[in-house]
């Protein structure tokens, strides 16, 4: 009885903590003294072209498996069967291109962009983050913002044949 009350209280506090975050920041888990990770870019609600820029920031140093450091898995809609791996550049820009495995099967529309901090052995390190984004038509260049409409007219121009 005591145990279930305690668990309910802990769950309630965790829910409150999750709801009380800054709206602009990515939703993160793995707080406290444990490792943390967040999505700096794109912002929550952003419209993305492909390729787009991703910036993640973690409390842990990132590196390849050989270094024994952590790395980050990037995927969409909670489906981590195919993902992109970020193994360097904490707080730096990474370009997610059209041939990224993270974008496999992702249709244009609203999606959840997930990141998960991983130990060197690929097991979950206990820190995750997500933002909701709208993915535009593939193959168009973009940097995570929606102000690249000007490019559209260029795409539809026929090649300039000279008769």
């Amino acid at each position, binding site marked *: 009885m005591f145990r279930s009350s305690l668990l309910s209280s802990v769950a309630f506090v965790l829910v409150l903590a999750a709801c009380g975050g800054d709206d602009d920041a990515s939703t993160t888990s793995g707080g406290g003294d444990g490792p943390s990770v967040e999505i700096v870019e794109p912002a929550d609600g952003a419209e993305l072209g492909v390729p787009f820029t991703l910036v993640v920031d973690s409390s842990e140093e990132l590196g390849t*498996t*050989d*270094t*024994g*450091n*952590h790395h980050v*898995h990037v995927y969409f809609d909670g489906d*981590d*069967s*195919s*993902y*992109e*791996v970020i193994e360097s550049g904490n707080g730096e820009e990474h370009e997610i291109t059209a041939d990224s*495995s*993270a974008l496999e099967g992702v249709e244009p529309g609203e999606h959840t962009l997930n990141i998960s901090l991983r*130990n*060197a*052995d*690929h*097991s979950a*390190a206990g820190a995750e983050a997500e933002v909701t984004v709208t993915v535009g038509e593939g193959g168009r260049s973009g940097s995570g913002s929606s102000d690249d409409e000007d490019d559209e007219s260029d795409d539809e121009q026929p090649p300039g044949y000279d008769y």
Partner: protein
Amino acid sequence: MTTEDGERSRSVERNNARTRWLHAAVYVTVLVLLLTGWWLTLGQEGRPSPLAELTRAADAEIHTMAGWVFAGVALLGIVAGWRAARTLLTDSVRFRRTDLRWFARWPRAVVTGRFGRHEGHFDPGQRVANLVMIVLLLVLIVCGIGLWAVSGGPAFVWFNRIHRWATYLFTPVIAGHVLIAAGVLPGYRGVWRAMHLGGRLRRRDAERVWPAWLERIDGDRRRPPDR
């Protein structure tokens, strides 16, 4: 004499069902481990391998799980089949001067089938391969458990390095074993039967590859039972 009896008299059982099942469990798990391990090593992490597509699990997860299954199979093999494990080990470490002649003739014999005489349960090449595989598989298991236990950090770097190098050495050895066991090379034609289906190989194949073992088997059959 029926056709079946005729077949049986022309063949001899090399491995019993328990050994064959253990061998099958080992090679299925090793195959999964090699496939997923090399997939990750070749930089394909995040892109599901055909096996990951089939199982809907990440390659790293499949590799870890298969590693545990393999460790379990190895332990089971040692505990439940300790007598066979002892034979495998004691015969594999025993080398005789005459084995040198066998090694000298081996490169031509894989084509002609005229191997040098040897006295072992396994041929001298098999004995070397057995020892290399046992040591490397043990290293791979220990380092694999180490990788899982520490998850990351400086110890992980060393476990990972040893795990990788053991794989680099193990892969060509296992490829050679498969090539020989598959019977592609004329000298080893028919030996695949020793570990598959009924575990019975033709007497002429046994005579060519494991002559002393066949003689011992025949001698045991002729000898009257102890009273």
